[in-house]
């Protein structure tokens, strides 16, 4: 079944009725609190969509019964009839009730979908691995599903002195090499780019959704360069080139290749790469922005000078206040974000919540994450969930008892180099507001008395 079909959407709408016995939100707030809730924004929403709210409250009330929960007292279809057989869905799909958690475009961000972005739904994700079907997308000239038997991978020198033998490999060749599997995050350099100057988008899907994290399987590029007889002393840079229409090219520092970290990958999360992610071959450059992870990888050239390709000379350059652009900005510095609760969400009632989010650094492991509930005046240290891996997403959790009063939630990551994620004031003092790329500022979510969470920026 295709996700997001009409049938799914109807099912979702039905599922929207809370399954627990719960009073409607209007009932658990005191009179004073309700007055406080009635700010302009809520009035606007309530006025526009009062009908929907009334429906929700009615449905919840109908489930109350003196004997207990009808879901327990009455036998349910799924407990009293025969279910689906094995392999009814040969390639399994998420529950139809999960249809809202899909990749989405940000309206108005780009003019054509062939050169655009779709964002990963961080607001509903757990742990650190991104389901492959939800991996964010960034294509420059559309995507193809390339026949793996027609794909070729070439390594050559910018002149013959850099590699003894220019070679061509098929996927049959590449998949026989000794392989490694490693978990890494990939973040677009423009992630959070819409927010440099001010708040622009409502939810964490759009503020931070150009990130994903997978287990990649492939061959260290170092192994393949050595197979071609690379001259490590002469080699300073490699150029990675894609096999798509854009023939995407990026300069990669030889240090990262020599370290063995850069992988020529065919596998992702236990299966082959998805077509949108470069099937059958992509480069994995841990810690470095996504544009360098060239998809549909067809060629690596070894040389001694950088290439100033379009996506490192016209785009993916960071404008500073003095009018100069920083070029070859590549490493994604330490960053974190609370994913639940987050912008556009509503807390159901007062009481206990698990504040959860993600932290990552392009320079290594996350060392600690601190969380503030008062906009950055006081902080508590979050618990990092294992595994904590280098250049990989790290999940953090903090317990919170919400007293129903306004709060501003923030998270602040520190990586193993000692680098601490900056706030907006500090970042803007150095880089201004026009950089577009590499915004790793502390994200703030404001909680108001109604339980509504909104995107704000705090200085």
């Amino acid at each position: 079944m295709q996700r997001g079909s009409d049938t799914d959407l109807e099912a979702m709408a039905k599922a929207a009725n809370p399954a627990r016995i719960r009073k409607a939100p209007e009932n658990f707030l005191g009179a004073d609190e309700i007055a406080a809730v009635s700010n302009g924004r809520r009035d606007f929403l309530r006025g526009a969509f009062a009908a929907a709210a009334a429906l929700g409250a009615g449905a919840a009330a109908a489930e109350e019964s003196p004997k207990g929960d009808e879901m327990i007292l009455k036998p349910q279809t799924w407990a009293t009839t025969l279910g689906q057989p094995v392999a009814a869905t040969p390639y399994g799909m998420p529950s139809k009730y999960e249809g809202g958690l899909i990749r989405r475009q940000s309206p108005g961000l780009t003019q054509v979908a062939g050169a655009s972005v779709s964002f990963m739904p961080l607001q509903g994700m757990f742990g650190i691995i991104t389901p492959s079907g939800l991996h964010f997308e960034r294509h420059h000239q559309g995507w193809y599903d390339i026949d793996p038997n027609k794909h070729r991978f070439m390594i050559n020198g910018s002149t013959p002195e850099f590699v003894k033998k220019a070679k061509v490999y098929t996927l049959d060749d590449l998949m026989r090499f000794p392989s490694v599997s490693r978990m890494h995050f990939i973040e677009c350099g423009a992630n959070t780019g819409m927010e440099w100057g001010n708040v622009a988008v409502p939810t964490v899907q759009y503020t931070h959704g150009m990130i994903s994290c997978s287990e990649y399987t492939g061959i260290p590029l170092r192994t393949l360069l050595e197979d071609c007889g690379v001259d490590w002393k002469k080699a300073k840079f490699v150029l990675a080139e894609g096999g798509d229409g854009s023939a995407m090219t990026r300069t990669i520092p030889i240090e990262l290749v020599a370290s063995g970290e850069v992988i020529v990958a065919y596998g992702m999360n236990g299966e082959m790469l998805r077509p949108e992610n470069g099937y059958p071959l992509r480069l994995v450059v841990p810690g470095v922005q996504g544009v360098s992870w060239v998809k549909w990888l067809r060629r690596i050239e070894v040389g001694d000078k950088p290439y100033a390709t379009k996506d490192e000379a016209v785009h993916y350059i960071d404008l500073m206040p003095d009018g100069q652009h920083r070029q070859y900005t590549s490493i994604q510095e330490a960053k974190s974000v609370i994913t639940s609760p987050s912008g556009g969400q509503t807390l159901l009632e007062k009481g206990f919540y698990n504040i959860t989010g993600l932290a990552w650094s392009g320079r290594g492991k996350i060392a600690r994450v601190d969380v503030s509930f008062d906009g950055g005046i006081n902080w508590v240290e979050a618990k990092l969930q294992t595994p904590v891996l280098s250049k990989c997403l790290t999940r953090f959790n903090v317990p919170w008892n919400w007293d129903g009063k306004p709060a501003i939630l923030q998270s602040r990551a520190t990586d193993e180099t000692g680098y601490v994620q900056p706030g907006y004031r500090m970042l803007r003092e150095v880089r201004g507001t026009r950089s577009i790329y590499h915004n790793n500022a502390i994200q703030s979510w404001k909680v108001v008395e109604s339980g509504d969470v909104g995107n704000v920026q705090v200085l």
Partner: protein
Amino acid sequence: MFRFSKPALAQVVFLAAALAAASPARALDDFGLGRAATPDEVKAWDIDVRPDFAGLPKGSGSVSDGETVWEGKCAVCHGTFGESNKVFSPLIGGVTKDDVKSGHVAALKRPDYPGRTTFMKVATISTLFDYIRRAMPWNAPKSLTNDQVYAVLAYMLNLSEIVPDDFVLNEQTIHDVQKMMPNRDGMTYDHAMWPSAAFSGKKMKPDTHAKVCMKNCKDKVEVASSLPEYALSSHGNIADQNRHVGQVRGQTTGPSAADSAAKKHPAAELADASGCLACHAVDTKLVGPSYRDVAEKYKGQDVSALLFKKVREGGEGAWGDVAMPPMTDIKDDDLKTLVAWILKGAPSK
């Protein structure tokens, strides 16, 4: 535990020795995989051009030749003067004669300057040659000859008032052009976001120095920005973008997707299935005009046949400079339904 009997073990040893003698042992890092690339194969794929012009092919093209290529293949997306932002960011504009002299684009210092064109940013002419050759035109990449690439680049340089009308760009004159690029000195490598000292010769430190403070870290919390009311519904109904179970729900910021889906006009579904909605929307202009605007334009006229032909065969000029591609895959009956629906103003029910 399995054990070899002595005679069996002797046999294994003998067999191993025989195999070793037959084919000398190969080191485990000598994979013997892949093959040598032929010179023609390398030539076919190795098309990159570096800032020092390594890889630049011979060829030449004049400004006037470039104008012809531009109008035939480029203007449809980039506008007659490269100024259009309808499909992509503008290419031309924002640079001055003074910038050509100084090597820094002055407008980049101005926070109030609206947008940045390609020529305001790019420092290296090789970048444009390389990119046009490998990736343009957008829907037919790698289809230009080298001379056409030189020509179209000459025309863009002329539009940017960097070279005169009678200029001819070739593998020699491109060196002179590099010295006139308006933002040629506009790049800096002084940052810590490249993992080596390859550029600046020194290992740079990060540019922010936040500290881990835990108590009373500031006096007041200044909320500098929040989402304006009008933008709350800009991303659709957020309730539909969240799970309907768990510790939170999404806020209702618009009509639910289920409601919208239930109300959909059959022709609207047809438009969606036929790919029309990639470029058109009912009431907002995307790449193409909105259906409401089309209906308004032809109000009171019988243009069904004309519109049928326009959609079927494609066209340009009626709604700005982005062309409508021919729609050959839609069945006649479906296309008639679509045209009738559009001319009625694309009603939702």
